[in-house]
């Protein structure tokens, strides 16, 4: 019985430690999920354990501590690494095709379907 209580206490302690840890860096997690890890492409900064990503997470935490908001942190990183670092690129003259092309294809496909139906 004593062992049972001991084991349960340990599990409880581990659990509570994890929760407090997660609460601390929740904001960092949220931001780093939107950032591309530049040296390990295909992973987000959040997923990666590379030196670059680890430093990036510390930097994000520092910026949060300084009182910067999400937008300011993204802007800061974009000014250093370019639009490529964010998974959600904003619309500018370089990315306009990226945003408009699906819309054009959608409309084009719609027209094709519409014509097919009206012919029948």
């Amino acid at each position: 019985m004593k062992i049972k209580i001991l084991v349960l206490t340990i599990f409880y302690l581990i659990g509570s430690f994890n929760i407090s840890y997660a609460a601390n860096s929740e904001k960092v997690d949220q931001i780093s999920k939107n950032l591309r890890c530049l040296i390990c492409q295909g992973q987000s900064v959040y997923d990666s354990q590379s030196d670059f990503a680890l430093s990036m997470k510390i930097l994000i935490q520092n910026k949060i501590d300084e009182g910067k908001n999400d937008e300011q942190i993204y802007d800061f990183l974009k000014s250093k690494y370019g639009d490529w670092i964010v998974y959600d690129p904003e619309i500018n003259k370089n990315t306009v095709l990226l945003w408009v092309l699906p819309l054009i294809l959608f409309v084009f496909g719609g027209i094709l379907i519409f014509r097919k139906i009206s012919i029948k």
Partner: protein
Amino acid sequence: MVKNIKLIAVVFLVVLSFFILLKGLNKTNNYSPNLNSSNIDFNFKAKFLYSNEETTLYKLINDKDFSLINIWASWCLPCRDEHPYLLNLNSLGKLNIIGINYKDSEVNAKKFIKELGNPYSKIIVDPSGVNSIELGAYGVPETILINNKSKTILKKYIGPLDDKKLTELKMIIKNEN
């Protein structure tokens, strides 16, 4: 008529995607931001390797025409290979070479310098890697050539220096003068 439009559309799309993919083949996978957009914040704080004083990058840029910021670490093997190139560049006397010691232990860093020589005028430490991100760096080794007067980045090399990059660096310094 409808069939024709469909055919033309399909051919157009295939040709378009072919050329987009063809263009992508020739592009390098290493993405690097263009130099104009990456502005350096010269005001970040860092400590020296050989003393506990705090400094800013701004203070380290001296009256020479150019500064070469080199990010290195003792655990980084390519850094060992590029070290002779830095010593060579330092012997030109035209460059102020600033070392940033990236995520390293103090003892190992000092051993590295003692063993291979010191091309740096000043070495600052970056134990968490945050300062390197402020510089827009990816990791070690990385080298950034700065015009001291205009405070602009002239050239940035990701990866170790080699013969080709050394000649290029010398050319840039010569032409800018």
